[in-house]
């Protein structure tokens, strides 16, 4: 028998991370979601090409041409924050353990001298790296296609870095919340989608305290761009919009991430996984 010194949770999680990252990066889910994050890049390229051929093709809101920076901000708001980041969180977060159970490989991880919560943590870290690798290059490409339409890359570069950091924080928070949904509930994908695209947008529309139970409420405070007036819903959202301070938002997102991950780890420790024969 070799080695009886039980590795720490974090060290075990890093080993699981090593084991999982490659599997996650080259999974069918990553290919599919890679196509999804390619959508904004294609859109940005199309706008850039259209403007290059016809300068008057620059998108307009209320008759006024939108600057490159503002257009980039709209894409970040409408496509990344409201759609892509929650979608990635739902699809990966709810499947952290479920994928191993479906593939029946969970047995190999759960019969090793490591806490089960370390398996979840390692897979969560792999999720973070995987989604960051999917999203950040996409955002940078959009930036380089769109911002030079009317502005200078150098001037707005600091705001790009803020965007990238904000999206990474969003992925971390949504991933942790949906890891908890995946660890605790049956049909986690459906529940996750209802939460991300039903509950969150609904409660953000109305005044009151319920919105403080969403990730989106704190995440929107980190966005360096103005919220676009693209629809009646947006106008309504802005009317009731109360933005917490940066510090309060970062603290709240850190607490949400830590608490939901801890709860997810507890759920995985106690749950029995019966593999289908």
């Amino acid at each position, binding site marked *: *028998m*070799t*080695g*009886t*010194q*039980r*590795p720490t949770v974090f*060290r*075990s999680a890093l*080993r*699981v991370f*090593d*084991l999982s990252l*490659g*599997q996650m990066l*080259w999974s069918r889910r990553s290919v599919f979601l890679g196509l999804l994050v390619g959508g904004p890049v294609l859109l940005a390229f199309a706008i850039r090409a259209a403007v290059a051929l016809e300068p008057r093709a620059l998108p307009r809101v209320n008759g006024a041409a939108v600057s490159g920076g503002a257009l980039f901000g709209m894409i970040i708001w409408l496509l990344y924050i409201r759609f892509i980041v929650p979608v990635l969180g739902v699809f990966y977060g709810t499947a952290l353990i479920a994928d191993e159970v479906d*593939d*029946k*490989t969970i*047995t*190999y*991880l*759960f*019969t*090793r*001298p*490591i*806490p*089960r919560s370390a398996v979840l943590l390692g897979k969560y870290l792999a999720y973070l790296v995987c989604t960051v690798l999917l999203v950040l290059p996409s955002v940078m490409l959009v930036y380089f296609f769109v911002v030079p339409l009317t502005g200078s890359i150098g001037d707005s570069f600091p705001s790009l870095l803020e965007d990238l950091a904000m999206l990474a924080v969003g992925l971390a928070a949504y991933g942790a919340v949906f890891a908890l949904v995946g660890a605790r509930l049956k049909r986690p994908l459906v529940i996750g989608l209802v939460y991300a695209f039903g509950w969150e947008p609904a409660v953000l529309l109305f005044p009151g305290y319920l919105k403080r139970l969403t990730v989106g409420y704190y995440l929107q405070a980190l966005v360096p761009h103005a919220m676009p007036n693209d629809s009646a819903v947006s106008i309504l959202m802005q009317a009731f919009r109360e933005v917490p301070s940066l510090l309060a938002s970062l603290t709240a997102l850190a607490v949400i991430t830590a608490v939901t991950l801890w709860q997810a780890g507890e759920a995985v*420790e*106690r749950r*029995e*996984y*019966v*593999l289908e*024969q």
Partner: protein
Amino acid sequence: MNAPAPPSAVVAADHLSKWYGQVIGLNDVTLTVPPGITGLLGPNGAGKSTFMKLITGQLKPSKGEVRVLGEPIWRNPALYFRIGFCPEQDAFYERMTGLEWVTALVGLNGVGETQAATMAHRALETVDLLEAKDKKIGAYSKGMRQRVKLAQALAHDPDLMILDEPLAGMDPIGRRKTIRLIKEWGRAGRSIIVSSHILHEIESMTSNILLINQGRILAEGNVHQIRDLIDEHPHTVYIKADETRALAREFLSYDDVLSLRFEDQAVVVETGKPDVFYARLTALAASGDHGSIHEVTSPDDNLQAVFKYLVKQ
């Protein structure tokens, strides 16, 4: 309450039951498994896998208690330093090579990367997979996949190995080698619990057998009666090979072969003397006279008849 299990028992179950909703997986089982090699024999659905999952801490008992190497196993990960488990399911990280996979799993035991790689290398050598260590597992044959599962179970040199159907789907030579390995591990002082639905396989490794059916242990110990019973019931063997017709011609000359038929690329043989038949089959595979034999399996209806007889008694 039964008398406490002897301190040397590798597994002690006390009124152990497991239900899946309304379905009973294991029903009020009390037993002790002594050190050495123990065979767990039962048809599919008998409760073997449930028992294996309970003694590897994957499932929590619904009722009763199970202790492995003297300690409760559920939520006791430290015990896995001393246990190696080879599961039944054919599930892998297909894109990894055999060496990468075994190294990664041994690494979870808290050893450094270099040491993990050395241990994985040694384990793959033991199961005769060194040449294929850098091939992706997705490209492994069924027999190689079984052997790489064994390698990850033994790489950290455990005191107790729990092997769930380790011979399933192996070719005759692979089977013979694996049986020899298991016996060697037993002689080296390891305790091994090995499950199968084929008496012949279990018998070739150990005479200490646990008979399980419908979630209950029917008998345990040196079960000679089963040996006699098996001869009274024809045993079916499914052989997938390159030249099934040539094999069939050869089998027809054996007096223990009662019938044979063809199915896809396989020949299905009914024999009255499985021991004799398997020995001849292994020799035949080793000689290569009738092409390659890829897979040998045996349906569990062989055992069903024996179990029906036992339950009636």
